[in-house]
């Protein structure tokens, strides 16, 4: 057990930053990202014996992070359906709030917060594989090969997914800004 714990400790030390930031790019909320990262590592600890070395250990961990993040977004979508009811009752849903990611003046921070909300809405309308490929391609540390390994697909497929995601995202945002 102590040997497993030691191995696990070193794994956490090596990958915690990458896992937290991966989750953060999906959920845009520090608290949720940290909670998700905790869940990711608990899952890693539970399934460490089941890891079959078909892929790199890091790829396996990041795949768990992506899966957990997508699950969280799905859960949020479900919660959002009851959001209207919550607003009527007067309960504020803090989990859905987005943390301002920049150290700017309040006006800019507010504008960015609003923009992030819009971006998140648009991203959530994309299919899961496009969304994942696009978000990971925007994060430092992920090459197309690594993304392909996480999504269990080819590099050319990832390139195609990123291209389609950009196009769809652009179209969705364009429509939104045209209407508002």
């Amino acid at each position, binding site marked *: *057990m102590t040997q497993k*714990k030691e191995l*696990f*400790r070193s794994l*956490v*030390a090596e990958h*915690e*930053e990458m896992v*937290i*930031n991966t989750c*953060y*790019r999906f959920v845009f909320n*520090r608290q949720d*990202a*940290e909670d998700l*990262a*905790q869940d990711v*590592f*608990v899952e890693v*600890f*539970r399934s460490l014996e089941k890891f079959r070395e078909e892929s790199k250990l890091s790829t396996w961990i990041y795949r768990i992070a992506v899966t957990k993040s997508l699950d969280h977004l799905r859960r949020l979508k479900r919660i959002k359906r009851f959001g209207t009811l919550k607003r009527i009752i007067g309960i504020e849903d803090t989990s859905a709030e987005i943390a301002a*990611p*920049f150290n700017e003046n309040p006006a800019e921070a507010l504008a*960015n917060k609003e*923009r*992030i909300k*819009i*971006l998140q809405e*648009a991203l959530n309308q994309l299919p899961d594989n496009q969304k994942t490929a696009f*978000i990971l391609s*925007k994060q*430092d540390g992920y090459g197309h090969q690594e993304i392909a390994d996480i999504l269990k697909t080819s590099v050319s497929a990832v390139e195609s997914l990123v291209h389609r995601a*950009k196009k769809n*995202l*652009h179209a969705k*945002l*364009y429509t939104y*800004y*045209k209407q508002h």
Partner: protein
Amino acid sequence: MIKKCNKNIEAEVENTIHLLDDLQPLEVHHQFRTLLMQKINNEYYHELKQVNNGFSQFLDLRIALMALLIIINFFSGLLLFQNNDKQLREGISEVLDSRNNDYTNHAFAYYDQTTLPLTDDNRIP
């Protein structure tokens, strides 16, 4: 005017998409690892408890099954024994009957035993 408006929209779209590029990476909270290890310890002990519970349940089930098997074995043995006993008795009585029949046959009989009424003449002193 429309062209300018489209340009503005295009700029907004680009700015929004570029937010992902400008997103500052998060620094790991200093308590992240402590909390995680606490969770792992809880998880491990919970797992251990579950395994123990599962094992004792399995053991209980095994003992119950063994007791059931012993009872079934005992009664099936008893039934078999009773059945064999009955068959054996029947077999013995059949053999005895056939032997009796054989020796009580008239052909094998040395004498005919007739029962005489008990009188003073044939009474044994």
